[in-house]
């Protein structure tokens, strides 16, 4: 019998084209035995949520470097809830000032991983918090 695998959508919302970080995370999650669906660049919150629903993921991991995180991250959480998918774990990463993190957490982003975070930290966080 196969056990349930953790499925993660790694998504790049917003208009910046820097996906090195997203790809490093994707690779780390894969090496931790997860199935990673990579969305590609410049996804709208609507596209991210539609992909998360179609792929039946357990986690949405978003990376953003454009500065629009305060708008885009909460929007994804809101749309997931509207689609009865509030159980999906949402995490974020990228260039995000410390002062913005409390606001993001209040708005349903479970954790924010800023530059320099060891990938193992992110892997552990997902394993401990995903609802499987």
């Amino acid at each position: 019998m196969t056990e349930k695998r953790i499925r993660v959508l790694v998504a790049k919302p917003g208009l910046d084209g820097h996906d090195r970080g997203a790809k490093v995370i994707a690779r780390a999650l894969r090496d931790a035995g997860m199935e990673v669906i990579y969305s590609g660049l410049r996804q709208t919150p609507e596209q991210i949520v539609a992909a998360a629903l179609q792929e039946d993921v357990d986690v949405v991991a978003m990376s953003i470097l454009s500065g629009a995180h305060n708008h885009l991250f909460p929007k994804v959480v809101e749309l997931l809830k509207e689609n009865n998918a509030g159980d999906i774990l949402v995490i974020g990463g990228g260039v995000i000032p410390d002062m913005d993190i409390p606001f993001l957490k209040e708005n349903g982003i479970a954790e924010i991983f800023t530059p320099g975070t060891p990938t193992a930290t992110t892997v552990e966080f997902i394993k401990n918090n995903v609802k499987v």
Partner: protein
Amino acid sequence: MEMEFVEKARAGDMRAIAKLISYAENEAPEAVEALQKLYPYTGNAQIVGITGPPGSGKSTLTDKLVKELRKKGKTIAVLAVDPTSPFTGGAILGDRVRMSDLTLDPGVYIRSMGTRGRLGGLSKATSFAVKILDACGFDYIFIETVGVGQSEVDIVKTADTTLVVTVPGLGDDIQAIKAGILEIGDIFIVNKADRDGTDRLVLELEMMLDLNPQKGEWIPPILLTVAPQNQGIAELAAAIGRHSDYLTRTGLLQSRRKERLETEIIDMLINKTTQHIIRRQSEGGRFEREILRVLNKEIDPYTLVTAIFEETFK
């Protein structure tokens, strides 16, 4: 719970469809119950396999083909199968990148699947996923799979129509014979046909196909495409339609589906039987001890297998 999902999925609820496919992927008991309910509604979709070497443009081609069929009001599901790492069990599934525009189309469902250790390029759950999507009323189901050599043959068992995608510049004509892909293609596509070497590749394919001893009434067409420019896509959609008509008219559709069912049923029986035997033999670590005995030459594996078989079926 799962019955609720079955009704919702039949009504087109994407999340319910996605949940049912997850059950099938995880071999959850709910999957069997759902499939029992859904089976009577299957059989209406045209199942199209798309295979070819990595980088030949399968995802981009699928994206354009889906858009072409959407113009005609058809609904489409795409199963994008990518390899699972045999070392970690993880996978990076990146086919959605080329199909971003389709994400918000309510008539399109895209699902990425890892092969999860199954040889042949197709995940074990693919045939279950196909049935779920078929019962949910999609007009077309595309199965896109990475193909390097013999493993594509698995697709044929699942698809009504198989597209083989190739590109110029991969090597000489021996590559095409070696790969063994000629026997499985119903339609051949030379993608990136704006590149050098296209004419030669077409010529080589024509010669190979001509030599195929299993030639029937259907002569597989060789189509030229340049997917990002949408070149040749309408012709490809038309060829898929012609192949469907041919299958129906000649009765091949029924006979292929019958063969496919036979394979699937045998596979399921093998799975169930193996699991049953291993579970029984593993009680109290017995199986492990027997394997050690074989290792130490106290018994040979053939005698052991015969003994287990007789014990199970007598």
